[in-house]
C-alpha cells in the first residue's frame, strides 16, 4: 500500500485538473450566491485556480514566464478587489442587507 502511495507521483495533469475543479466551484459560486461580497470571493477562487494552472505549467514547461504572469495576476487582482469593494460599498451603503438581485435598475 505504501509502495503504491510512494509510486504515484502527482503529475502536472493532477494539478491542472485540480485547478479546473476549483475553477468550476468558483463559477458555480458566482452564479448561485446572492451576497455581493461572497460573489467576489468566488471570483477570487477562480483567479486562484488560474494562478495554480500557470504555476504548474511553468514548472512543466520550464518557463519562468508562467510565474511572471501569476505575479501580475496577483497585482491586478488586488487592484480589482480594491475598486470592486469600493463600488460595492458605495452602492450598498444605503441599503443594508441588500443582495445583488435588488440592483436591477437596468431591467428592460
Amino acid at each position, binding site marked *: 500500500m505504501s509502495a503504491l502511495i510512494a509510486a504515484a507521483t502527482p503529475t502536472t495533469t493532477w494539478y491542472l485538473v485540480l485547478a479546473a475543479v476549483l475553477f468550476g466551484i468558483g*463559477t458555480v459560486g*458566482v*452564479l448561485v450566491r*446572492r451576497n455581493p461580497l461572497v460573489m467576489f470571493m468566488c471570483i477570487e477562487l477562480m483567479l486562484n485556480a488560474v494562478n495554480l494552472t500557470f504555476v504548474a505549467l511553468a514548472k512543466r514547461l520550464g518557463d519562468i514566464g508562467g510565474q511572471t504572469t501569476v505575479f501580475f495576476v496577483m497585482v491586478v487582482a488586488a487592484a480589482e478587489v480594491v475598486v470592486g469593494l469600493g463600488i460595492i460599498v458605495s452602492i450598498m451603503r444605503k441599503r443594508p442587507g441588500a443582495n445583488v*438581485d435588488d*440592483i436591477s435598475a437596468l*431591467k*428592460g
Partner: protein
Amino acid sequence: MLDLIWLIPALPLAGFILILLFGRLLGEPKAGILAALMVAGSFAVTVGVFFELLSKTTEERHHVLKAFSWVPIGSLHVDLAFLADPLSITMALFVTGIGSLIHLYAIGYMHGDLKFSKFFLYLNLFVFSMLMLVMGENLLVTFLGWEGVGTCSYFLISFWHTRESAATAGKKAFVTNRVGDWGVMMAMFLAFGATGTLSYAGINHAAESGALSAVTATGIAMMLFIGACGKSAQLPLYIWLPDAMEGPTPVSALIHAATMVTAGVFLMTRISPVLSIAYSWAPTIIAVIGVATALFAATIAVAQTDIKKVLAYSTVSQLGFMFLAIGSGAYVAAIFHMVTHAFFKALLFLGSGSVIHGMHHEQDMRKMGALRVLMPITALTFIVGWLAIAGVPPFAGFWSKDEILLFAFAKSPILYVVGMITALLTAYYMTRQVIMVFFGEARWNDHSEENGAHGDFKPHESPKVMLAPLVVLAGLSIVGGALQLPFNHNTKFLEKWLEPVIEFGEKDISGTWADNNKYILLIVAIVVALTGIAVSYLVYSKKKFAAIEPNVMAQGWFYDKGISNFMGGPGRKAFDGITWVDRTIVDGAVNGVGKLVQGAGGFLRKGQTGAVRSYAAAVGLGVVALLVWFFVRGVVL
C-alpha cells in the same frame, strides 16, 4: 370656312366658361339666351362647313384640322384634331340644330327655377362634349367627348339633386356608362396595339387594306359595342335611361333622345370598315341584341303610366332598331333613322314637357285627358310626332324604319319579323299615349287637389318660346323623310352624301329577294302601322277590348329589380368577401409583420432582467460553448 371648324365645339365651350364666370350676374333669362346663341352660332358654322363640303367632290370630303399635338409619347402620337367629313358634319348639324331649339325651349321651361344659369352651364358643356365626340379625328378625342357627355348627363339628370330619386338616377347613369366605357378603353388599346395609331383614318385604312386581322377587328368592334350598349342603352345596360327621366324635360329631349344616346350608333358607324372585316357572328350579335332590346323595351312601354317613361322606353326601342341596322350592314339606314328619330323624339319629349308644364308638373297619364282643346298647338305637334314614330307615310319615321327592315330581311327574315312586331307595338303604345293624354274624358279634375293645384285647375297652353321649337321640329318630322327615299338611286341623298364614310362596310342588297320586292314590304309596313293604331284605338278609345297592361311589363320584366337584388344579395356578399380578404389577409399580413416584431421584441425583452446573476449565467453558458468548440476543434477533429 373649313379652317373654322374648331369654332364648332369652341363656341359652346366659350358659352360654358362665360356662364361659369358670369352666370349669376346674367341671371334669367340672359344666361339662357347666351347659351342658346352660342349653340346657334355653332349651328351656323356647321351649316357653312356643310355647304363647303358639298361643293367638293366625294373624295375630297375629308378635312382634318389639327389644333395641337396632344399626346406625343414614344410611338403614340395623338393630336387634338377635328375631322370634317360627311358623317361628322351630319351629326354636328343635328346636334347643334336641335340643340339650339332645345336651348330656346329650356328658357321657357326652366322659368322660375333657382338654378337657371347652372342649367345652361351644364347644357353648353354637354353640347361641347358631344361636338368633341362627333368631330374628333381619333378615338382619344372621341373618348374625351364620350366621357364628357357621360359626366354632363350625370349633372343634368341629378339637376334637382335635392330629390333623392334624381340623385340616385344620376349616379346610376354614370356608373352604368362607366361599365360601357371599359369596353371603349379596351378597344382603344387593341386598336393602338394592332395598328399603332388611334386615328380613324389610320384604323379604317388598316381594316380596308387587310392589315388588321379578323380577330383583332372583332375584338375592337365588340369592345366598342359594349361601350355603345352602355351609352345607347341597349340590353343589358339600358337600365339607366328610364330612370334618367328624373331630369328636366329639355335634358331628356336633348341628351336622351337626340344626341348622347346616338353616340354609340355614331361610333359603330365610324369604324364600319373594322366591323365589316370582323367575324360574321359579330354583326349578327349586334343585330340580335338590337332587335331584342327593341322588342323588350316596346313591351314595357305598353304598360307605362308616366308620360316620359313611355318615351324613354320608346327611345331604347328605337335605338335597338338602329343597332339592328348596323348589324345588318345598313349604316346609311342607321344614320337616317338616327336623324329622323332625333326630330320626332325630341318633338315628342318637348311636347310632353309642354303638357307637364301646362298640367303644373303632373306626369301621370291617367290623370290627363282631353287636352287637345286646351293645348291645341302642343296637341297638333305631338300628333305629328306620333304619326312619324308610328311609321305612317309620308312622315319621316316611316321611310327610315322601312329602310332598316329591308336590310334586316336581307340578313334574316326572323329579324324582320321581330322588327315588325316591334313596329306594331310602337304604333300601339304611341296611339295609347296620344289617346290617354289628348283625347277621351278630362280626368284632371278628379285629382287636382292632390297636385297642390288651387281651386279651379285648368291646364293651359305653354308660352311661345316653348311652342316655336315644337313647330319647327314638327315640320322637320314631316319632310325629313326626303333625305333618303328608296324609289331610285337619285332620291337617295343621304346614301350619296355618306358614301365616302361607309362604302367599305355598307352591305349591298341589290338583287336579294328583299330588294326586289321592296314595295311589297313597304305596303306590309304601312298595314302593320295602321293595324297597331286601330287596335289601340279600339282598346283605349272605344274600350271594345280590355287593356293588357300586366304588372310584369309595367315593372320592366323585373330586370332592374333583379339586378338590384342580385347586387344587394349575392353581389354584396361577394363584395363583403373581398373586403374581408383585403382586411384580414392583406392588412393582416402587413399588421402581422408589425405584431411579429413586437412579439419577438417582447419575448427578447424578458432576457433583460437587470439582474447581474442572469447575465453572469449567460456569460457562463457562452464560456461553455466556446470551450466545447475549442475542444471539438482541437481534440476531436
